[in-house]
């Protein structure tokens, strides 16, 4: 990135001049991303919907991307800018790895992403914010970790679970009641799909599992074996079992009252 800014600065997201805009500017926005840790790793998942104002811009958008072998990033906010940011982030991690012969630490990667979000601040002030969620397996500590960000690039590590995007409040409420710190990998997968279902239930900009079009949330797992994206078959199986249960209990599993 430093090399790029020296040579072709116009290729970097933060260095473009913006046309003055009046009022709200509409571009496709991605919506909800959720993540949860379990002993041995972390899961990161996102719904598939992109919206433009009150319209659905895209039904099958991909919002969760591998950053490198041991980390992934999920994006919420202006889709075009976010995808470009992820592309540049992936490139930077790979470039560092090839040039230095070693990978960045998870903290290093999280900090790098923070700087990139801060670079987008002027865009964010015009309503084109990008707020990713970063999750990875910390090889040194042997556990999964989650980092959340605000529009100014402020970074904070989340314990257990986190969410970002328009449906994040509902997803967080859902996970708050369902999360335990001894989940198995499969339970963690169900947890994030439940959370996405709850987000889609109450937030119009978040898409739920689309059984008719066979569009299911994108779910990824990162463990000491690296990044793995669930295949369509696997993710549809989790989503179908959640939907199946909701046919009996539309509000989802109940937590104990006391």
């Amino acid at each position, binding site marked *: 990135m430093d*090399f*790029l800014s020296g*040579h*072709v600065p116009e*290729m970097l997201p933060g260095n473009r001049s913006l046309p003055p805009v009046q009022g709200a500017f509409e571009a496709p926005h991605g919506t909800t991303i959720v993540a949860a840790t379990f002993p041995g790793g972390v899961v990161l998942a996102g719904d598939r919907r992109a919206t433009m104002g009150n319209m659905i811009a895209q039904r099958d958008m991909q919002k969760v991307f591998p950053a490198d*072998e041991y980390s992934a990033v999920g994006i919420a906010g202006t889709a075009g800018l976010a995808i470009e940011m992820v*592309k*540049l982030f992936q*490139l930077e991690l*790979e*470039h560092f*790895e*090839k*040039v*230095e*012969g*070693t*990978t960045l630490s998870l903290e290093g990667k999280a900090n790098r992403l923070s700087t990139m979000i801060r670079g987008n601040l002027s865009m964010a002030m015009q309503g084109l914010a990008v707020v990713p969620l970063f999750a990875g397996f910390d*090889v040194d500590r042997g556990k999964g970790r989650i980092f959340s960000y605000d529009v100014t690039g402020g970074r904070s590590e989340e314990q257990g679970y986190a969410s970002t995007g328009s449906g994040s409040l509902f997803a967080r409420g859902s996970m708050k009641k369902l999360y335990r710190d001894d989940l198995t990998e499969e339970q963690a997968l169900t947890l994030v799909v439940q959370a996405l279902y709850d987000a889609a239930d109450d937030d119009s900009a978040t898409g739920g599992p689309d059984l008719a079009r066979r569009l299911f949330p994108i779910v990824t797992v990162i463990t*000491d*074996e*690296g990044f793995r994206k669930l295949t369509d078959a696997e993710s549809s199986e989790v989503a179908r079992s959640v939907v199946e249960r909701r046919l009996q209990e539309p509000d989802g599993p109940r937590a104990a009252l006391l």
Partner: protein
Amino acid sequence: MSTPFYVSPQQAMADRAEYARKGIARGRSLVVLQYADGIVFVGENPSRALHKFSEIYDRIGFAAAGKYNEYENLRIGGVRYADLRGYTYDRDDVTARGLANVYAQTLGTIFSSAAEKPYEVELVVAEVGAGPEGDQIYRLPHDGSIVDEHGSVAVGGNAEQISGFLDQRHRDGMSLAEALKLAVQALSREANGNEREIPAERLEVAVLDRTRPQQRKFKRIVGRQLTRLLDADGAGATPTDAPSDTEEPDAPSSGDAGGTGREGAAETGAGETGKDGKDGADGADGTEGSGKE
């Protein structure tokens, strides 16, 4: 003031070429061979941290003989070129041919510029295709020419003798174990015809494996996997070494020993390589290498 002697351009170029050739020949040889599932790089390298082979991009690998600081410079330049290309256009638009052209330009310019000493390096840029017919291997001598190679190529040290040896014995469709054996056999032949033993820990081996599920096909072969391949008998090894290339089965146990599929140097604090690089090289093979590794 003394009048400078007239040196004819032919003579000047010949001197420079000789200087570079001698420098390259002082380093140890390395070989690059095609095998059934890709391209294998084999070289003798006592250092764990300073690599002769490296990944440039998804399907492109780099090998160099000669002076470490010079080829490291070129390597980083190549990584930058490839990453910038891939970011600007698409990952598929980064090709070995384009990269080889850039290297040829750079080497050619340096070679003929009177102000600089010629680089004492010889490079190999290889790209693995979807099938064996798509494989490309380019050899780039010190003067900036490009040689399109097929099957096998050797650079550095007594490269000519080794290539002759390889040309006779290399055939298409070898298994990885067979190719590796042939490479080690070729490398252990000395100029005077004697054979010497090269232990596995002094070998640097890397492959561009087209069967790897990941987008990035470059992988270092180290530790147990290397000894297993070396011990395997040519024909019998074919079925067993195929799954081992997919890397994942033994990943948990060989964690930092390359099972992570990343650089073998991961744990050696390669951040310091830049500074310690030359000392490391000198120290490691000071007896015969004189820093030419």
